[in-house]
């Protein structure tokens, strides 16, 4: 997927000015956030499960090479085939090769963020193979030529009337006077159209929420059933998954399953938790005849042993995204790549490079809500700060910004000088502002005063002065 993260600031302005998007984002406050709260409050063992989940994932990451080998052996024993892909291009080629050998003309797809990451759809289409997104949200954005704006709810940025307009524009074989006022009518129409695509597909591609080393099993959790129809109907089932999805045993996956749906949508379990192992067995009346697993590295191995290793514990629940005030203000597309919100701000520089991704970690107040709700206790604010440090070290910021930071650092390292300067500034501002008590416009502070007033400080008194005088509790 092409990356527009370098244009983050421009994307933000567009997002803030988009009334449709702003209206749609209101749904996050009334949906994901309270639903997660209810589900977590209803499970007394949630905190203990978080600890267990962190321990399991840390253990896997410390032994990832060995667990991958064990996993691969089990997949092979069950009649499946494992392919390793070092990067996105390799993964695309492997999948294209499988599709060509299967003489595929259409490929149905379950929702897979990794398939977005590697730019699979464009690659297949360019080679004469039609990818068909079957997750309802993914279908809605595929017909608009858009990318997902959230890792769990890819079409969260759309309103009902936009969807109706798309369906009328595209599904021209249906009567023009039909009503699509009710969301249920829209769903029924999508169900009917995609049902035939499921039945006709030659290859079905899914992601994996987990890969179980004990049994060589790939697991997907869905609510719609599209991931299941994608993998049981075609002749070939391809799983694309990144290497850190490995979990040792079925017991371990049970532990983490309890965290996943609750953190994502507030459900105890998603409707379908499906464990797939190999192709159909002799005597099976249905199921795919071939089963392939493409294991993607694409930068994860480099995160191991680095200060970003903890990010590999991520189970892609989206809770951090739902609770982030920045995401809530701008939506997912503004981030410019596959992964939005706090997790995307850590992953984009890691996987797509700091040069392209460096703006994202800077759009954070470090409020810490993301870390508080992360089921895997990933220290997201700390990692955002690490990226800012790396950005500075690598001289990626414009020279004026670096100079300004260096100037501030000069004073910050000399507290007495810092306080003398701020006392002087407080004196000047206090005098200038003594009439109204606030500034609605201030030179050099336009970024602040454009949207809010700056209160006039107490004349000549810094915060520490007032603290010492006992004025601030």
């Amino acid at each position: 997927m092409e990356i527009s993260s370098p244009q983050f600031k421009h994307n933000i302005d567009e997002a803030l000015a988009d009334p449709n998007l702003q209206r749609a984002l209101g749904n996050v406050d009334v949906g994901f956030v309270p639903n997660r709260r209810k589900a977590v409050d209803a499970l007394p063992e949630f905190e203990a499960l978080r600890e267990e989940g962190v321990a399991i994932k840390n253990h896997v990451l410390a032994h990832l090479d060995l667990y991958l080998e064990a996993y691969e052996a089990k997949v092979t024993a069950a009649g499946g085939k494992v392919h390793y892909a070092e990067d996105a291009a390799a993964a695309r080629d492997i999948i294209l090769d499988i599709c060509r050998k299967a003489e595929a003309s259409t490929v149905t797809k379950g929702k897979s963020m990794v398939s977005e990451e590697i730019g699979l759809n464009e690659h297949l289409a360019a080679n004469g193979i039609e990818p068909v997104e079957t997750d309802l949200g993914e279908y809605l954005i595929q017909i608009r030529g858009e990318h997902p704006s959230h890792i769990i709810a890819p079409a969260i940025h759309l309103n009902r009337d936009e969807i109706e307009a798309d369906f009328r524009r595209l599904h021209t074989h249906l009567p023009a006077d039909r009503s699509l006022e009710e969301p249920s009518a829209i769903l029924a129409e999508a169900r009917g159209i995609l049902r035939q695509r499921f039945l006709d597909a030659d290859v079905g591609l899914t992601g994996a929420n987990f890969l179980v080393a004990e049994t060589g099993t790939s697991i997907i959790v869905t609510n719609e059933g599209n991931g299941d129809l994608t993998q049981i109907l075609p002749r070939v089932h391809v799983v694309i998954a990144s290497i850190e999805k490995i979990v040792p045993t079925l017991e371990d996956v049970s532990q983490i399953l309890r965290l996943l749906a609750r953190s994502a949508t507030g459900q105890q379990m998603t409707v379908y938790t499906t464990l797939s192992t190999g192709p159909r067995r002799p005597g099976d009346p249905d199921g795919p005849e071939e089963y392939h697993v493409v294991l993607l590295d694409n930068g994860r191995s480099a995160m191991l042993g680095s200060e970003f290793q903890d990010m590999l514990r991520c189970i892609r629940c989206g809770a951090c995204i739902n609770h982030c005030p920045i995401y809530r203000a701008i939506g997912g597309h503004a981030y410019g790549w596959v992964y939005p919100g706090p997790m995307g701000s850590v992953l984009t520089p890691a996987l797509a490079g700091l040069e392209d991704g460096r703006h994202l970690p800077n759009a954070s107040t470090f409020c810490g809500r993301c870390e508080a709700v992360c089921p895997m206790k990933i220290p997201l604010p700390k990692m955002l700060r690490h990226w800012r440090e790396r950005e500075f070290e690598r001289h990626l910021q414009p020279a004026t910004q670096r100079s300004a930071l260096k100037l501030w650092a000069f004073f910050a390292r000399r507290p007495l000088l810092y306080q003398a300067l701020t006392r002087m500034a407080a004196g000047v501002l206090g005098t200038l502002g003594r009439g109204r008590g606030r500034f609605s416009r201030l030179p050099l502070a336009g970024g602040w005063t454009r949207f809010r007033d700056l209160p006039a400080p107490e004349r000549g008194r810094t915060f520490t002065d007032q603290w010492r005088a006992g004025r601030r509790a």
Partner: protein
Amino acid sequence: MTTPSDARTAVLARIRASIGVTGKEPLRRAAVADRLAGRPRGVIPETARVEGAARLAAFAEKVVTTMASFEAVATAAEVPMAVAAYLAGRNLPAEIRHGADPRLASLPWSGTMLAVSTGRSDGRDPVGVSHAEAGIAETGSVVLVSGPDNPTTLNFLPETHVVVVDAADIVGGLEDAMARIRARFGAGVMPRTVNFVTGPSRSADIEQKLLYGAHGPKRLHVIMVGVGDGGG
């Protein structure tokens, strides 16, 4: 272009370099082997540790909260009439399809007016009937296993899915269900597909409003047979 084994070597080598190991260290290998063989259970919530009659009641209650419907019958012989009544009560077609599972095939279907066919689904069957491997009280899920007995297509293509589960097969929690599957198929061995089904298909992709029957069944009906001892 790298050969497949080159790619494999490269990825594993990069992982090992990042962690700072060769892969041959005996302690690490033992740690992995131990966990895979020992399969330690972690935190088991209280809702997964209910026993006896309370477990069956919890299962019944949970199934209903997932927007599936539930009924209990005393004997397997009552299942066909229960299915017929369920379909008639909702004005649904009186025709069903099930797999080769003897627990379904041996039932007195001829005592009803239902048209019964057997085999996998090709998408034209209005009602699929499956027999579950187990039910899970913690979540209200039913566990379905692929194969000629209960073809997986019956779980997803028909608009209505009826699942029969024995009370004796209602387990406490997720780990218990995993242990059941392991006991049936052997350690490290799985069937092609295991579905944990918790309610009917749904989507909230349109303005976050919950709708049923996205791609899978619009309705799920669970029939629990017998009053088991609830053990295991």
